Protein backbone atom coordinates (compact mmCIF):
# COMPACT_ATOMS: atom_id res chain seq x y z
CA UNK A 1 0.00 0.00 0.00
CA UNK A 2 2.48 2.56 1.20
CA UNK A 3 4.73 2.44 -1.77
CA UNK A 4 6.66 5.31 -3.23
CA UNK A 5 4.71 4.88 -6.42
CA UNK A 6 1.28 5.37 -4.93
CA UNK A 7 2.44 8.51 -3.17
CA UNK A 8 3.86 10.02 -6.34
CA UNK A 9 0.78 9.03 -8.29
CA UNK A 10 -1.42 10.57 -5.63
CA UNK A 11 0.54 13.84 -5.73
CA UNK A 12 0.32 13.99 -9.49
CA UNK A 13 -3.36 13.24 -9.60
CA UNK A 14 -4.36 15.66 -6.85
CA UNK A 15 -1.79 18.35 -7.58
CA UNK A 16 -4.29 21.18 -7.34
CA UNK A 17 -5.81 20.05 -4.05
CA UNK A 18 -2.38 19.81 -2.46
CA UNK A 19 -1.47 23.18 -3.89
CA UNK A 20 -4.64 24.64 -2.41
CA UNK A 21 -3.95 23.31 1.08
CA UNK A 22 -0.25 24.23 0.90
CA UNK A 23 -0.67 27.78 2.27
CA UNK A 24 -2.56 26.36 5.26
CA UNK A 25 0.11 23.72 5.91
CA UNK A 26 2.93 26.25 5.62
CA UNK A 27 1.07 28.59 7.91
CA UNK A 28 0.47 25.87 10.50
CA UNK A 29 4.10 24.79 10.44
CA UNK A 30 5.41 28.33 10.86
CA UNK A 31 2.95 29.60 13.45
CA UNK A 32 1.70 26.51 15.29
CA UNK A 33 4.14 23.64 14.98
CA UNK A 34 7.38 25.62 15.12
CA UNK A 35 6.35 27.13 18.49
CA UNK A 36 5.42 23.62 19.65
CA UNK A 37 9.01 22.60 18.94
CA UNK A 38 10.00 25.61 21.02
CA UNK A 39 8.35 24.01 24.05
CA UNK A 40 11.51 21.99 24.61
CA UNK A 41 13.04 25.05 26.26
CA UNK A 42 10.88 23.99 29.24
CA UNK A 43 13.55 21.33 29.83
CA UNK A 44 16.45 23.73 29.42
CA UNK A 45 17.96 26.77 31.02
CA UNK A 46 17.23 28.73 27.89
CA UNK A 47 19.14 31.86 26.99
CA UNK A 48 18.13 33.70 23.82
CA UNK A 49 21.78 34.31 22.94
CA UNK A 50 22.54 30.59 22.92
CA UNK A 51 19.36 29.50 21.15
CA UNK A 52 17.54 26.20 21.64
CA UNK A 53 20.50 24.19 20.35
CA UNK A 54 23.07 25.81 22.61
CA UNK A 55 21.16 26.13 25.87
CA UNK A 56 21.99 23.67 28.67
CA UNK A 57 19.53 20.86 29.44
CA UNK A 58 18.25 20.66 33.01
CA UNK A 59 15.62 17.94 32.78
CA UNK A 60 12.54 18.46 34.89
CA UNK A 61 14.05 21.11 37.17
CA UNK A 62 11.65 23.80 35.95
CA UNK A 63 8.64 21.65 36.79
CA UNK A 64 10.00 20.80 40.23
CA UNK A 65 10.61 24.48 40.77
CA UNK A 66 6.98 25.22 39.89
CA UNK A 67 5.61 22.68 42.38
CA UNK A 68 7.80 24.21 45.08
CA UNK A 69 6.96 27.78 44.05
CA UNK A 70 5.32 29.72 46.89
CA UNK A 71 2.77 30.91 44.34
CA UNK A 72 1.92 27.42 43.10
CA UNK A 73 -1.08 26.85 45.35
CA UNK A 74 -2.28 30.39 44.90
CA UNK A 75 -2.48 30.22 41.11
CA UNK A 76 -3.91 26.69 41.02
CA UNK A 77 -6.50 27.52 43.68
CA UNK A 78 -7.53 30.76 41.95
CA UNK A 79 -7.80 29.05 38.58
CA UNK A 80 -10.10 26.38 39.99
CA UNK A 81 -12.11 28.91 42.00
CA UNK A 82 -12.78 31.13 39.01
CA UNK A 83 -13.71 28.15 36.84
CA UNK A 84 -16.02 26.84 39.52
CA UNK A 85 -17.71 30.23 39.94
CA UNK A 86 -18.10 30.45 36.17
CA UNK A 87 -19.85 27.09 36.07
CA UNK A 88 -22.01 28.00 39.04
CA UNK A 89 -23.12 31.46 37.90
CA UNK A 90 -22.03 32.39 34.38
CA UNK A 91 -23.09 29.08 32.87
CA UNK A 92 -26.75 28.90 34.00
CA UNK A 93 -27.49 32.60 33.29
CA UNK A 94 -28.07 32.25 29.53
CA UNK A 95 -30.23 29.15 30.12
CA UNK A 96 -32.50 31.20 32.35
CA UNK A 97 -32.56 34.00 29.81
CA UNK A 98 -33.54 31.58 27.03
CA UNK A 99 -36.28 30.05 29.18
CA UNK A 100 -37.68 33.50 29.95
CA UNK A 101 -37.46 34.71 26.36
CA UNK A 102 -39.23 31.56 25.24
CA UNK A 103 -42.25 32.54 27.32
CA UNK A 104 -42.51 35.98 25.71
CA UNK A 105 -45.16 36.15 23.03
CA UNK A 106 -44.75 39.80 22.12
CA UNK A 107 -42.24 39.54 19.30
CA UNK A 108 -40.92 43.12 19.22
CA UNK A 109 -40.22 42.94 22.94
CA UNK A 110 -38.38 39.68 22.50
CA UNK A 111 -36.33 41.07 19.62
CA UNK A 112 -35.44 44.21 21.57
CA UNK A 113 -34.23 42.24 24.59
CA UNK A 114 -32.21 39.98 22.29
CA UNK A 115 -30.63 42.87 20.39
CA UNK A 116 -29.61 44.62 23.61
CA UNK A 117 -28.23 41.55 25.33
CA UNK A 118 -26.28 40.32 22.28
CA UNK A 119 -24.51 43.63 21.87
CA UNK A 120 -21.98 43.49 24.76
CA UNK A 121 -20.46 40.34 23.24
CA UNK A 122 -18.97 42.56 20.55
CA UNK A 123 -17.66 45.25 22.84
CA UNK A 124 -13.91 45.09 23.25
CA UNK A 125 -12.51 43.62 26.45
CA UNK A 126 -10.42 46.75 26.89
CA UNK A 127 -13.57 48.86 26.81
CA UNK A 128 -15.46 46.56 29.18
CA UNK A 129 -12.61 46.54 31.67
CA UNK A 130 -12.11 50.28 31.25
CA UNK A 131 -15.75 50.78 32.17
CA UNK A 132 -15.47 48.42 35.13
CA UNK A 133 -12.48 50.48 36.20
CA UNK A 134 -14.43 53.72 35.93
CA UNK A 135 -17.58 52.42 37.58
CA UNK A 136 -15.74 50.81 40.50
CA UNK A 137 -13.75 53.86 41.49
CA UNK A 138 -14.78 55.53 44.72
CA UNK A 139 -16.52 58.31 42.79
CA UNK A 140 -17.83 55.90 40.14
CA UNK A 141 -21.30 54.78 39.23
CA UNK A 142 -21.51 51.75 41.53
CA UNK A 143 -20.36 53.77 44.50
CA UNK A 144 -22.89 56.46 43.63
CA UNK A 145 -25.59 53.82 43.93
CA UNK A 146 -24.09 52.40 47.14
CA UNK A 147 -23.87 55.90 48.61
CA UNK A 148 -27.46 56.57 47.60
CA UNK A 149 -28.57 53.68 49.77
CA UNK A 150 -26.41 54.93 52.62
CA UNK A 151 -23.34 52.74 52.10
CA UNK A 152 -19.68 53.68 52.34
CA UNK A 153 -17.72 54.69 49.25
CA UNK A 154 -14.65 52.61 48.47
CA UNK A 155 -12.52 51.68 45.49
CA UNK A 156 -13.91 48.23 44.71
CA UNK A 157 -11.21 46.97 42.37
CA UNK A 158 -8.46 47.00 44.99
CA UNK A 159 -10.46 44.88 47.45
CA UNK A 160 -9.80 41.16 47.34
CA UNK A 161 -13.34 40.28 48.39
CA UNK A 162 -14.88 42.24 45.51
CA UNK A 163 -12.81 40.74 42.70
CA UNK A 164 -14.91 37.63 42.07
CA UNK A 165 -18.27 39.41 42.10
CA UNK A 166 -16.93 42.03 39.68
CA UNK A 167 -15.42 39.37 37.44
CA UNK A 168 -18.51 37.18 37.39
CA UNK A 169 -21.13 39.90 37.03
CA UNK A 170 -19.27 41.63 34.22
CA UNK A 171 -18.82 38.24 32.56
CA UNK A 172 -22.54 37.60 32.70
CA UNK A 173 -23.24 41.10 31.42
CA UNK A 174 -20.99 40.55 28.42
CA UNK A 175 -22.00 37.05 27.38
CA UNK A 176 -25.50 36.25 28.67
CA UNK A 177 -27.26 37.19 25.45
CA UNK A 178 -24.77 35.68 23.04
CA UNK A 179 -24.60 32.39 24.95
CA UNK A 180 -28.39 32.17 25.00
CA UNK A 181 -28.56 31.95 21.19
CA UNK A 182 -27.76 28.26 21.14
CA UNK A 183 -30.44 27.51 23.73
CA UNK A 184 -33.02 29.57 21.86
CA UNK A 185 -32.19 27.68 18.69
CA UNK A 186 -32.69 24.41 20.55
CA UNK A 187 -36.00 25.62 21.93
CA UNK A 188 -37.19 26.52 18.46
CA UNK A 189 -36.76 22.86 17.57
CA UNK A 190 -39.05 21.54 20.30
CA UNK A 191 -42.17 19.94 18.90
CA UNK A 192 -45.06 22.35 19.42
CA UNK A 193 -47.56 19.50 19.61
CA UNK A 194 -46.16 18.60 23.01
CA UNK A 195 -47.35 21.94 24.32
CA UNK A 196 -50.77 21.48 22.76
CA UNK A 197 -51.09 18.08 24.33
CA UNK A 198 -49.96 19.40 27.69
CA UNK A 199 -52.50 22.21 27.50
CA UNK A 200 -55.31 19.80 26.81
CA UNK A 201 -54.21 17.81 29.83
CA UNK A 202 -54.47 21.02 31.83
CA UNK A 203 -50.80 21.69 32.43
CA UNK A 204 -50.03 25.20 33.65
CA UNK A 205 -47.32 27.22 31.95
CA UNK A 206 -44.94 26.56 34.81
CA UNK A 207 -45.58 22.86 34.43
CA UNK A 208 -45.00 23.12 30.69
CA UNK A 209 -41.69 24.86 31.37
CA UNK A 210 -40.74 22.24 33.89
CA UNK A 211 -41.80 19.16 31.92
CA UNK A 212 -41.39 20.12 28.27
CA UNK A 213 -39.13 23.13 27.75
CA UNK A 214 -36.48 22.26 30.30
CA UNK A 215 -36.12 18.58 29.30
CA UNK A 216 -35.92 19.76 25.69
CA UNK A 217 -32.91 21.87 26.62
CA UNK A 218 -31.20 19.17 28.63
CA UNK A 219 -29.08 17.59 25.84
CA UNK A 220 -27.68 21.00 24.86
CA UNK A 221 -27.06 21.94 28.48
CA UNK A 222 -25.20 18.75 29.29
CA UNK A 223 -23.13 18.96 26.13
CA UNK A 224 -22.05 22.52 26.88
CA UNK A 225 -21.50 21.75 30.55
CA UNK A 226 -19.19 18.88 29.72
CA UNK A 227 -17.35 21.16 27.31
CA UNK A 228 -16.95 23.68 30.14
CA UNK A 229 -15.70 20.96 32.48
CA UNK A 230 -13.05 20.14 29.93
CA UNK A 231 -11.71 23.65 30.20
CA UNK A 232 -11.58 24.03 33.94
CA UNK A 233 -7.94 25.07 33.94
CA UNK A 234 -8.22 27.15 30.83
CA UNK A 235 -9.01 30.62 32.11
CA UNK A 236 -8.53 33.40 29.62
CA UNK A 237 -5.95 35.82 30.88
CA UNK A 238 -6.97 38.95 29.00
CA UNK A 239 -9.70 40.06 31.34
CA UNK A 240 -7.72 39.28 34.48
CA UNK A 241 -4.65 41.09 33.15
CA UNK A 242 -6.80 44.15 32.58
CA UNK A 243 -8.52 43.99 35.95
CA UNK A 244 -6.09 42.79 38.57
CA UNK A 245 -3.60 44.82 40.55
CA UNK A 246 -0.86 43.72 42.90
CA UNK A 247 -3.34 44.20 45.71
CA UNK A 248 -5.65 41.55 44.31
CA UNK A 249 -3.05 38.97 43.18
CA UNK A 250 -4.09 36.83 46.13
CA UNK A 251 -7.48 36.06 44.55
CA UNK A 252 -6.98 37.02 40.91
CA UNK A 253 -3.64 35.58 39.88
CA UNK A 254 -4.29 32.45 37.78
CA UNK A 255 -1.96 30.08 35.96
CA UNK A 256 -2.12 31.92 32.64
CA UNK A 257 -1.41 35.32 34.17
CA UNK A 258 1.48 33.83 36.13
CA UNK A 259 2.87 32.39 32.91
CA UNK A 260 2.60 35.87 31.40
CA UNK A 261 4.34 37.64 34.27
CA UNK A 262 7.14 35.08 34.60
CA UNK A 263 7.69 34.76 30.88
CA UNK A 264 7.31 38.20 29.45
CA UNK A 265 7.80 40.59 32.36
CA UNK A 266 10.55 38.67 34.19
CA UNK A 267 11.90 37.11 30.94
CA UNK A 268 12.19 33.76 32.76
CA UNK A 269 11.50 31.97 29.47
CA UNK A 270 12.14 28.35 30.39
CA UNK A 271 10.28 28.47 33.67
CA UNK A 272 7.26 30.15 32.12
CA UNK A 273 7.19 27.63 29.27
CA UNK A 274 7.30 24.78 31.78
CA UNK A 275 4.29 26.17 33.67
CA UNK A 276 2.46 26.66 30.39
CA UNK A 277 3.20 23.10 29.32
CA UNK A 278 2.02 21.74 32.65
CA UNK A 279 -1.19 23.70 32.21
CA UNK A 280 -1.72 22.48 28.62
CA UNK A 281 -1.24 18.86 29.62
CA UNK A 282 -3.68 19.11 32.51
CA UNK A 283 -6.12 20.82 30.14
CA UNK A 284 -5.91 17.99 27.66
CA UNK A 285 -6.42 15.41 30.41
CA UNK A 286 -9.54 17.26 31.51
CA UNK A 287 -10.83 17.61 27.96
CA UNK A 288 -10.31 13.97 27.09
CA UNK A 289 -11.96 12.80 30.33
CA UNK A 290 -14.87 15.14 29.78
CA UNK A 291 -15.25 13.74 26.29
CA UNK A 292 -15.15 10.17 27.61
CA UNK A 293 -17.79 10.96 30.22
CA UNK A 294 -19.90 12.61 27.56
CA UNK A 295 -19.79 9.48 25.43
CA UNK A 296 -20.50 7.23 28.42
CA UNK A 297 -23.62 9.25 29.13
CA UNK A 298 -24.78 8.70 25.60
CA UNK A 299 -24.12 12.24 24.44
CA UNK A 300 -22.21 12.82 21.28
CA UNK A 301 -18.62 13.56 22.14
CA UNK A 302 -16.50 16.35 20.81
CA UNK A 303 -14.16 14.10 18.90
Amino acid at each position, binding site marked *: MLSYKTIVK*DFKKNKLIYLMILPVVVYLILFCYKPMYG*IIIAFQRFRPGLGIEGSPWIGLDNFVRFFKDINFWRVVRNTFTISFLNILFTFPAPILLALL*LNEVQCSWFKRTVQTITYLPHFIAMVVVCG*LIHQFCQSDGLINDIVAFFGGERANLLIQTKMFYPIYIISGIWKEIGWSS*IIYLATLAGIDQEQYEAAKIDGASRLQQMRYITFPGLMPTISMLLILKMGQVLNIGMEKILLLYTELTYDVADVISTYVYRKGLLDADYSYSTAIGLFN*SIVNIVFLVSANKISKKLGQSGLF
Partner: protein
Amino acid sequence: MRKRKKRKSIEDCILDVIIYSILIFLAVATFYPMWYVLVASFSSGSYIASQELLIWPGEFNVEAYRLTFQHPLLMRSFGNSLMVLAIGLPINIVLTVLAGYFMASTTKVYWKKPIIYMILFTMFFNGGLVPNYLNVRDLGIYNTIWALVLPGALSVYNANICKTAMEAIPYSLHESAYLDGASDLKVLFKIVLPLMKPTMAVLLLYYGVAHWNAWFNASIYIRDKWKLPAQNILRAVLLENSSLAESVGDNYNAYADAMQYAAIIIITVPIVCVYPFLQKHFAKGVMIGAVKG
Protein backbone atom coordinates in the same frame (compact mmCIF):
# COMPACT_ATOMS: atom_id res chain seq x y z
CA MET B 1 -44.90 30.71 18.11
CA ARG B 2 -47.26 29.14 20.56
CA LYS B 3 -50.83 30.21 20.02
CA ARG B 4 -51.95 32.95 22.34
CA LYS B 5 -54.58 31.72 24.73
CA LYS B 6 -57.94 33.38 24.39
CA ARG B 7 -58.37 33.98 28.09
CA LYS B 8 -55.49 34.14 30.46
CA SER B 9 -55.74 32.79 33.95
CA ILE B 10 -54.59 34.89 36.87
CA GLU B 11 -51.67 32.58 37.35
CA ASP B 12 -50.56 33.23 33.78
CA CYS B 13 -50.87 36.97 34.24
CA ILE B 14 -48.69 36.89 37.35
CA LEU B 15 -46.17 34.76 35.53
CA ASP B 16 -46.13 37.19 32.62
CA VAL B 17 -45.59 40.13 34.94
CA ILE B 18 -42.67 38.38 36.61
CA ILE B 19 -41.09 37.32 33.31
CA TYR B 20 -41.47 40.71 31.68
CA SER B 21 -40.12 42.53 34.74
CA ILE B 22 -37.04 40.34 34.91
CA LEU B 23 -36.37 40.82 31.21
CA ILE B 24 -36.93 44.57 31.39
CA PHE B 25 -34.57 44.79 34.36
CA LEU B 26 -31.99 42.75 32.47
CA ALA B 27 -32.29 44.84 29.32
CA VAL B 28 -31.99 48.09 31.25
CA ALA B 29 -29.05 46.81 33.29
CA THR B 30 -27.31 45.69 30.10
CA PHE B 31 -28.08 48.84 28.19
CA TYR B 32 -27.40 51.44 30.85
CA PRO B 33 -23.59 51.21 30.95
CA MET B 34 -23.49 51.70 27.17
CA TRP B 35 -25.94 54.56 27.40
CA TYR B 36 -23.90 56.09 30.21
CA VAL B 37 -20.81 56.19 28.01
CA LEU B 38 -22.74 57.78 25.15
CA VAL B 39 -24.26 60.42 27.40
CA ALA B 40 -20.99 61.15 29.20
CA SER B 41 -19.16 61.65 25.93
CA PHE B 42 -21.47 64.55 25.10
CA SER B 43 -21.38 66.11 28.56
CA SER B 44 -18.95 68.45 30.25
CA GLY B 45 -16.60 67.13 32.91
CA SER B 46 -18.19 69.11 35.70
CA TYR B 47 -21.63 67.79 34.76
CA ILE B 48 -20.46 64.16 34.81
CA ALA B 49 -18.91 64.68 38.24
CA SER B 50 -21.98 66.44 39.64
CA GLN B 51 -24.56 63.85 38.61
CA GLU B 52 -25.56 60.82 40.65
CA LEU B 53 -27.08 59.01 37.67
CA LEU B 54 -26.47 60.21 34.16
CA ILE B 55 -29.66 59.87 32.18
CA TRP B 56 -29.38 62.60 29.60
CA PRO B 57 -26.43 64.73 28.41
CA GLY B 58 -25.97 67.91 30.43
CA GLU B 59 -24.26 71.02 29.08
CA PHE B 60 -24.36 69.26 25.72
CA ASN B 61 -21.24 69.72 23.63
CA VAL B 62 -19.10 67.90 21.12
CA GLU B 63 -15.87 69.41 22.37
CA ALA B 64 -14.66 66.03 23.64
CA TYR B 65 -15.04 64.55 20.14
CA ARG B 66 -13.33 67.56 18.53
CA LEU B 67 -10.37 67.18 20.90
CA THR B 68 -10.23 63.41 20.59
CA PHE B 69 -10.10 63.65 16.82
CA GLN B 70 -7.14 66.00 17.20
CA HIS B 71 -5.22 63.57 19.36
CA PRO B 72 -2.34 62.48 17.13
CA LEU B 73 -1.51 59.16 18.80
CA LEU B 74 -5.12 58.03 18.99
CA MET B 75 -5.82 58.92 15.38
CA ARG B 76 -2.66 57.16 14.28
CA SER B 77 -3.75 54.09 16.22
CA PHE B 78 -7.10 54.04 14.43
CA GLY B 79 -5.19 54.03 11.18
CA ASN B 80 -3.12 51.12 12.47
CA SER B 81 -6.25 49.17 13.44
CA LEU B 82 -7.74 49.72 9.98
CA MET B 83 -4.47 48.58 8.46
CA VAL B 84 -4.62 45.35 10.48
CA LEU B 85 -8.14 44.77 9.14
CA ALA B 86 -7.14 45.53 5.57
CA ILE B 87 -4.18 43.15 5.62
CA GLY B 88 -5.51 40.60 8.08
CA LEU B 89 -9.02 39.89 6.79
CA PRO B 90 -8.00 38.71 3.30
CA ILE B 91 -5.39 36.39 4.84
CA ASN B 92 -7.93 35.06 7.36
CA ILE B 93 -10.53 34.40 4.71
CA VAL B 94 -8.17 32.74 2.25
CA LEU B 95 -6.71 30.39 4.87
CA THR B 96 -10.13 29.59 6.35
CA VAL B 97 -11.78 28.87 3.02
CA LEU B 98 -8.88 26.71 1.85
CA ALA B 99 -8.80 24.74 5.10
CA GLY B 100 -12.60 24.40 5.08
CA TYR B 101 -12.67 23.27 1.46
CA PHE B 102 -9.99 20.68 2.05
CA MET B 103 -11.79 19.25 5.08
CA ALA B 104 -15.14 19.21 3.28
CA SER B 105 -13.91 17.84 -0.03
CA THR B 106 -14.83 14.25 -0.81
CA THR B 107 -12.02 13.66 -3.28
CA LYS B 108 -9.86 10.72 -2.27
CA VAL B 109 -6.49 12.16 -1.36
CA TYR B 110 -3.74 10.08 0.22
CA TRP B 111 -2.59 12.65 2.81
CA LYS B 112 -6.06 13.87 3.62
CA LYS B 113 -6.41 12.41 7.10
CA PRO B 114 -2.95 13.42 8.32
CA ILE B 115 -3.48 16.97 7.09
CA ILE B 116 -6.92 17.21 8.71
CA TYR B 117 -5.47 15.92 11.98
CA MET B 118 -2.69 18.43 11.62
CA ILE B 119 -5.26 21.21 11.34
CA LEU B 120 -7.49 19.98 14.17
CA PHE B 121 -4.65 19.25 16.57
CA THR B 122 -3.87 22.96 16.83
CA MET B 123 -7.28 23.41 18.46
CA PHE B 124 -6.25 21.37 21.47
CA PHE B 125 -2.61 22.14 21.86
CA ASN B 126 -0.40 25.09 21.15
CA GLY B 127 3.09 26.25 21.89
CA GLY B 128 2.03 28.56 24.64
CA LEU B 129 2.88 32.13 25.37
CA VAL B 130 6.67 32.19 25.48
CA PRO B 131 7.37 29.82 22.55
CA ASN B 132 4.95 31.84 20.42
CA TYR B 133 6.64 35.04 21.49
CA LEU B 134 10.11 33.70 20.73
CA ASN B 135 8.82 32.41 17.40
CA VAL B 136 7.61 35.86 16.41
CA ARG B 137 11.02 37.29 17.31
CA ASP B 138 12.72 34.46 15.41
CA LEU B 139 10.73 35.09 12.25
CA GLY B 140 11.76 38.73 12.28
CA ILE B 141 8.23 40.12 12.42
CA TYR B 142 8.55 41.51 15.95
CA ASN B 143 7.42 45.14 16.12
CA THR B 144 5.80 44.99 12.67
CA ILE B 145 2.17 44.79 11.62
CA TRP B 146 2.74 41.16 10.57
CA ALA B 147 3.04 40.21 14.23
CA LEU B 148 -0.58 41.35 14.63
CA VAL B 149 -1.83 39.71 11.46
CA LEU B 150 -0.13 36.33 11.14
CA PRO B 151 -0.24 34.64 14.58
CA GLY B 152 -3.76 33.26 14.87
CA ALA B 153 -4.57 34.06 11.23
CA LEU B 154 -6.38 30.73 10.88
CA SER B 155 -9.03 29.95 13.45
CA VAL B 156 -9.79 26.25 13.23
CA TYR B 157 -13.14 26.92 14.84
CA ASN B 158 -14.03 29.21 11.92
CA ALA B 159 -12.63 26.70 9.43
CA ASN B 160 -15.09 24.19 10.88
CA ILE B 161 -17.96 26.61 10.38
CA CYS B 162 -16.79 26.99 6.80
CA LYS B 163 -16.49 23.25 6.32
CA THR B 164 -19.99 22.58 7.67
CA ALA B 165 -21.49 25.19 5.35
CA MET B 166 -19.66 23.64 2.40
CA GLU B 167 -20.89 20.17 3.27
CA ALA B 168 -24.45 21.43 3.14
CA ILE B 169 -24.08 22.17 -0.57
CA PRO B 170 -25.47 19.24 -2.57
CA TYR B 171 -22.69 17.13 -4.02
CA SER B 172 -24.45 16.79 -7.36
CA LEU B 173 -23.46 20.39 -8.07
CA HIS B 174 -19.78 19.56 -7.67
CA GLU B 175 -20.19 16.40 -9.66
CA SER B 176 -21.69 18.04 -12.72
CA ALA B 177 -18.97 20.69 -12.60
CA TYR B 178 -16.27 18.01 -12.42
CA LEU B 179 -17.87 16.24 -15.37
CA ASP B 180 -17.66 19.49 -17.30
CA GLY B 181 -13.95 19.43 -16.59
CA ALA B 182 -13.87 22.08 -13.88
CA SER B 183 -10.94 22.03 -11.47
CA ASP B 184 -11.30 22.24 -7.69
CA LEU B 185 -10.28 25.88 -7.77
CA LYS B 186 -13.06 26.59 -10.23
CA VAL B 187 -15.59 24.59 -8.24
CA LEU B 188 -14.62 26.56 -5.14
CA PHE B 189 -14.95 29.98 -6.74
CA LYS B 190 -17.81 29.39 -9.16
CA ILE B 191 -20.05 27.04 -7.19
CA VAL B 192 -19.19 26.76 -3.52
CA LEU B 193 -18.40 30.33 -2.51
CA PRO B 194 -21.37 31.98 -4.25
CA LEU B 195 -23.67 29.58 -2.39
CA MET B 196 -22.32 30.42 1.05
CA LYS B 197 -22.41 34.19 1.20
CA PRO B 198 -24.16 34.25 4.61
CA THR B 199 -21.43 32.07 6.09
CA MET B 200 -18.78 34.34 4.60
CA ALA B 201 -20.52 37.29 6.23
CA VAL B 202 -20.41 35.53 9.59
CA LEU B 203 -16.73 34.69 9.15
CA LEU B 204 -15.89 38.27 8.19
CA LEU B 205 -17.75 39.45 11.26
CA TYR B 206 -15.95 37.04 13.58
CA TYR B 207 -12.50 37.78 12.24
CA GLY B 208 -13.17 41.49 11.89
CA VAL B 209 -14.41 41.90 15.44
CA ALA B 210 -11.53 39.80 16.74
CA HIS B 211 -8.99 42.03 14.98
CA TRP B 212 -10.70 45.23 15.97
CA ASN B 213 -10.95 44.26 19.63
CA ALA B 214 -7.54 42.63 19.95
CA TRP B 215 -4.97 44.21 22.23
CA PHE B 216 -2.91 41.47 23.84
CA ASN B 217 -0.71 40.52 20.90
CA ALA B 218 0.08 44.15 20.21
CA SER B 219 0.99 44.63 23.85
CA ILE B 220 3.68 41.96 23.64
CA TYR B 221 4.76 42.18 19.99
CA ILE B 222 4.77 45.92 19.31
CA ARG B 223 7.26 48.14 21.06
CA ASP B 224 6.91 51.35 19.06
CA LYS B 225 3.90 53.24 20.40
CA TRP B 226 3.15 54.79 17.01
CA LYS B 227 2.52 51.30 15.64
CA LEU B 228 0.03 50.29 18.32
CA PRO B 229 -3.60 49.65 17.37
CA ALA B 230 -6.43 51.67 18.90
CA GLN B 231 -7.34 49.24 21.69
CA ASN B 232 -3.87 49.53 23.17
CA ILE B 233 -3.99 53.31 23.26
CA LEU B 234 -7.45 53.07 24.77
CA ARG B 235 -6.09 50.67 27.36
CA ALA B 236 -3.38 53.14 28.34
CA VAL B 237 -5.99 55.85 28.66
CA LEU B 238 -8.68 53.88 30.52
CA LEU B 239 -6.63 51.55 32.66
CA GLU B 240 -3.25 53.14 33.09
CA ASN B 241 -4.44 56.67 33.65
CA SER B 242 -2.48 58.36 30.93
CA SER B 243 -4.60 61.35 30.12
CA LEU B 244 -5.81 62.04 26.62
CA ALA B 245 -6.32 65.69 27.43
CA GLU B 246 -2.72 66.45 28.36
CA SER B 247 -1.32 65.66 24.97
CA VAL B 248 -3.85 67.85 23.19
CA GLY B 249 -3.17 70.93 25.27
CA ASP B 250 -2.96 72.20 28.82
CA ASN B 251 -6.34 73.85 28.97
CA TYR B 252 -8.42 70.82 28.25
CA ASN B 253 -8.23 68.91 31.52
CA ALA B 254 -11.88 69.69 32.09
CA TYR B 255 -12.63 67.39 29.17
CA ALA B 256 -10.40 64.52 30.25
CA ASP B 257 -13.32 62.34 31.37
CA ALA B 258 -15.54 63.12 28.43
CA MET B 259 -12.66 62.45 26.07
CA GLN B 260 -12.22 58.97 27.49
CA TYR B 261 -15.86 58.27 26.80
CA ALA B 262 -15.66 59.84 23.35
CA ALA B 263 -12.71 57.58 22.53
CA ILE B 264 -14.73 54.54 23.65
CA ILE B 265 -17.63 55.59 21.44
CA ILE B 266 -15.42 56.21 18.43
CA ILE B 267 -13.79 52.82 18.81
CA THR B 268 -17.07 50.94 19.33
CA VAL B 269 -19.20 52.66 16.68
CA PRO B 270 -17.82 50.67 13.72
CA ILE B 271 -18.85 47.44 15.41
CA VAL B 272 -22.27 48.72 16.36
CA CYS B 273 -22.71 49.79 12.72
CA VAL B 274 -22.11 46.37 11.17
CA TYR B 275 -24.01 44.62 13.94
CA PRO B 276 -27.60 45.03 12.64
CA PHE B 277 -26.68 43.78 9.17
CA LEU B 278 -25.19 40.62 10.52
CA GLN B 279 -27.56 39.93 13.37
CA LYS B 280 -29.83 37.79 11.26
CA HIS B 281 -26.95 35.42 10.52
CA PHE B 282 -25.92 34.96 14.14
CA ALA B 283 -28.12 32.07 15.09
CA LYS B 284 -27.03 30.13 12.05
CA GLY B 285 -23.32 30.72 12.58
CA VAL B 286 -23.48 29.86 16.26
CA MET B 287 -25.38 26.67 15.61
CA ILE B 288 -22.92 25.50 12.98
CA GLY B 289 -20.03 26.28 15.30
CA ALA B 290 -21.60 24.28 18.09
CA VAL B 291 -21.98 21.13 16.06
CA LYS B 292 -19.01 18.91 16.58
CA GLY B 293 -16.12 19.53 14.27
